[in-house]
């Protein structure tokens, strides 16, 4: 799984976006990815797996009172985007996603054939 900087592809992904921080952990069963997307409600989170590209996108929706003027903004854009390239041994059809309180957890299992197997050594 390699990190690729957001590439300008379609018109939809042309808008500037924040790069969310992630943790990526691999064990024998697959890869677990955590991403911090604070301010994104469940219905504004978009996950897409296309060929070997995983795209995480989210729109921030905050309750802002009418007429509010920002005096200091560290989160200066209303959306997040991050694109990853999946490697071949990962089963992109079986990705499992959980999203709670702004944290996304993705489980990407390894394909059956890529699961570790102990090779028996026969002594003749």
């Amino acid at each position: 799984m390699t990190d690729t900087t957001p590439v300008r592809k379609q018109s939809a992904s042309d808008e500037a976006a924040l790069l969310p921080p992630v943790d990526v952990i691999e064990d024998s069963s697959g890869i677990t990815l955590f991403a911090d997307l604070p301010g994104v409600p469940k219905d504004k989170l978009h996950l897409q797996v296309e060929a070997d590209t995983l795209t995480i996108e989210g729109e921030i929706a905050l309750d802002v009172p009418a007429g509010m003027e920002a005096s200091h903004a560290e989160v200066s854009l209303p959306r997040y985007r991050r694109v990853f390239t999946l490697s071949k041994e990962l089963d992109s059809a079986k990705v499992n996603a959980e999203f709670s309180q702004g944290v996304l957890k993705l489980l990407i299992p390894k394909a059956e054939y890529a699961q570790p197997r102990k090779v028996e050594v026969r002594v003749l």
Partner: protein
Amino acid sequence: MMYRSLFPRDVLAELDRLQREMQQAFHLSPSIRGIARGGFPAMNVGGTPQSVEIYAFAPGIDPASLDVQIEKGVLTIAGERKLPEPAEQATVHIDERFAGRFRRVVTLPDDVDANAVEARYRDGVLRISIARKQSAQPRRITIQ
């Protein structure tokens, strides 16, 4: 507006903003606490004539473990973010998310009412609304 457009039409205003940010980056901020960028949680601050609104972007935290205090016109947000330890055999490829204890401090304007505070946690964002004092609110004066 909450968000700054990345490509505004007014280039001079943008240059001005850039200069301000450069000054902040070199700690020339007039505020004694400076403006810590890149700290956790990231904060946005805004105001209306009736209230001051503070948004702290702190995802995946148990709201009960957050400590929000207002003392002498200073708002403090403190807490701890615990992340699950990876298993022993696991390999960590990317490790960017914040973990551990945090504390951030904001100086509040003079006209806020420290007794009228509301804090809500939703979608990983802590929103603190502090009402301004009645006496500080704009009033229309009728001419007799």
